[in-house]
């Protein structure tokens, strides 16, 4: 299951989507909204995606994973729009016969997604906001951005 959604990520659905009788281990990673970032207090996050391309890129990541590890199923879901504190912006679940594959594939999936999926995070602080872009943060104070 590969999905870009504006709805809350349901971990039980994520788990169910990779459960098979052949699986001995399932690893699930959730990236959650943290209340701090580079010394600032974060109020919420907002995500934007180039959805069709993100789905395509994530599909390529799945193909790479299947070529490298012997896994059963993998699901990758990314939420867009507002993601409140504690809630998940991304959820990845991998089932495999043995736990090593599940852990490694899950880790690889989130690392690659962060590198190449066309998805952007905006941090909303108490008095400003900033797109998080490697190589330069584009910040605006509340007053400037009218």
């Amino acid at each position, binding site marked *: 299951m590969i999905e870009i959604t504006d709805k809350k990520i349901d971990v039980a659905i994520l788990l169910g989507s990779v459960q098979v009788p052949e699986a001995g281990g399932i690893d699930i990673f959730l990236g959650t909204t943290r209340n701090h970032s580079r010394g600032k207090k974060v109020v919420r996050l907002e995500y934007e995606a180039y959805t069709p391309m993100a789905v395509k890129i994530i599909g390529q990541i799945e193909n790479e994973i299947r070529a490298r590890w012997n896994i059963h199923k993998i699901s990758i879901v990314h939420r867009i729009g507002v993601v409140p504190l504690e809630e998940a912006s991304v959820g990845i679940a991998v089932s495999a016969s043995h736990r090593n594959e599940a852990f490694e594939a899950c880790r690889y999936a989130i690392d690659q997604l962060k590198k190449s999926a*066309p*998805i952007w995070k905006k941090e909303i602080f108490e008095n400003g906001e900033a797109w998080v872009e490697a*190589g330069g943060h584009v910040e605006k104070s509340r007053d400037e951005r009218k």
Partner: protein
Amino acid sequence: MDLPKISVTVKLFASVKDIARVSEATLELPAESVAGDVVSHFVSQFPAMEGLRSYVRVAVNECYVDVSHPLHNGDDVALIPPVSGG
């Protein structure tokens, strides 16, 4: 005699979209244009994008391409600022 032209759709995201204040634009370009020319067009129109010039990647029809990738009429071009999903 006019040079032949092509028309491409350009999609903008995140900080690039905020600067341009538009999420999609149609661009007329000379027929021999390459992906990098779309970046140059926007940087010249919006000087605030200059800082992003070295970071922005270009995707054509949903695939990352090199700046030298030749464009064709009807292409979907996306300017991809550094991603930060996850």
